[in-house]
């Protein structure tokens, strides 16, 4: 339960950073925290208290495996999601760098277009 609360808190922190902070890098960090809060939640969905890794060893007890192993599907989803997040992070940082080159500042208020 405490881990779900952590995911919720991280989500809130990320959203706050994204919406309230004016510094573009802080917005980027906010978005990354928000994404990982969702990833954390996904991992927790498949987690079983005291569970074993979902790797089946030849000859092991099948019934025990089914009841003890954590759900591997959310882990696969999170891996995919992390890879997508990496691509997104690269693009965000690249854009932030370009903005810095152009304006010499990362303050969102100094930009002409960026209002939201």
């Amino acid at each position: 339960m405490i881990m779900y609360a952590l995911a919720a808190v991280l989500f809130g922190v990320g959203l706050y950073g994204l919406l309230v902070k004016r510094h573009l890098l802080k917005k980027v960090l906010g978005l990354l925290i928000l994404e990982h809060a969702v990833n954390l939640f996904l991992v927790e969905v498949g987690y079983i208290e005291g569970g074993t890794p979902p790797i089946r060893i030849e000859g092991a007890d099948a019934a025990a495996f089914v009841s003890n192993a954590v759900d591997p599907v959310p882990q696969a989803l999170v891996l995919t999601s992390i890879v997508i997040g990496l691509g997104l992070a690269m693009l965000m940082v690249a854009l932030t760098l370009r903005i810095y080159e152009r304006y010499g500042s990362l303050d969102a208020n100094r930009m002409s277009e960026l209002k939201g």
Partner: protein
Amino acid sequence: MLDLVPLFVLIPLGAAFACLLVKKRAPAVAPWLSLVSVVALLGLAIAGVVQGTSGAAIAGGWSLETHLGTSFLPGIVLVFDGLSAMFLLLVAVVSTAVLLFGLRYMDTYDGRPLYYALLSLLIAGMNGAVLAGDLFNLYVFIEIASIASYALVAFGTGGREIEAAFKYLMLGAVASSSILLGIAVLYASTGLLNMADLGAAIAAGQVSEATLLAVATLFLAGLGLKAAMMPFHAWLPDAHPSAPAPISAMLSGLLIKTLGIYALVRVLYVVIGMDGVLGGSLQTLLLVLGCLSMVGGVLLALGQTDLKRLLAYSSISQMGFVLVALGTNTWLGVAAGIYHALNHALFKSALFLSAGSLERLTGTRDITEMGGIARVAPATTLGTVGASLSIAGVPPFNGFWSKLLILIALFSAGLPVVGAIAAATAVLTLVTFVKVQHKALFGALPERLKDIKDVPASMSLPVVALALLCLLGGLLWPLGLQDIVGDAAASVRTDAKTNLAPEQYRTMVHSEGRQP
């Protein structure tokens, strides 16, 4: 046909990689690679629509005997039905026009192989999203298309473009997180990802109403932002005009429909269920947000003088028409909504392409500084006028028929107030586009524009062709097109008191030897 379905994703994905491979050695090959790939997609999509096949294909599909005694086919389920076929055809048609237009238009940009690679990636993402049979693949393909579109908006690398891309990326990524969170909550309560299975589980009442409400809210916010429905529209008026013209046409013409409208229709009608416990409130929400988008979009469009910004706001308004049509939860409403989404893709991409031509010709996007273009650029004018008449809803163009159908659907569903708002919006749209015609195309030709020549044929031809398709879409409506669109609508909403479509969808997916 079903065996070929994975090609809809593989061909553009392959083209994207190939464009990157030839980037250094033979950059001139890249445009032709992507052109060949979209022509192949066009052929496949036409074959799919003509044959009218529907079914599920499993990409991968390794038969697997598990140690636990059960056997199942792990693989990526791609569902090809009337609705998917329609959107695949739409993506192929608009992409072909856009690529042709871009051949000359993109001359002024650097790094063109990258443009073709990103464009192919965008097409792969959209095709995948339209075919995805489970929610997580839907999310992945939405992300592929979105990331390609963020990069394409920034392609000009000017201050405007980069800022718009940054804003678009921030909001788009929050929307994607919201979609992923919705998927996670659904998985937590059912242990399923396949849309057909999820639909069955939700229809059987396995998900509590509170959970379902949370899921519906997360999906509506996420997909609503991708569809640019108000109040989630803030990114669109910056992002769409900032991109190069062919990309604006792709984003406004296709992306908001495949990632927004299509995904929304699938999730709301097949997974969450418009007749289920949340049906009534979802309908109200769609109608309210639709009205907000319709009226807000057109009022903001009226005040614009920047042509591309005006078109972007008008896209929000037109998406509002589609949303209210979907909010009726009737077969006629869904058919009208899909038909309007289809028509909007044709005329809005034509208008964005012609805006690109006009910008190239006059050196400005401000319509008050244009004028009399009709005298110097007849081909561009022809296409622009056709598309404008269509979006303004002048018969016999397709925009007239789809708006009429939406009005009929709204009135027959007992929603006269929404119908009246839609009718008023249609009139305001007409006013907006009369203004554009009057200011940009006709009237006095400014002195500095006396010597300009019309754009090359490879730029005017796609616009004229799309405008011609708008006319054909209207003329063919009574002669067969209505059956195709009707079938597409029937794959998510059948014409009966109880909706049989989700049940048919499940049967179709499960008949592929795939056990839930």
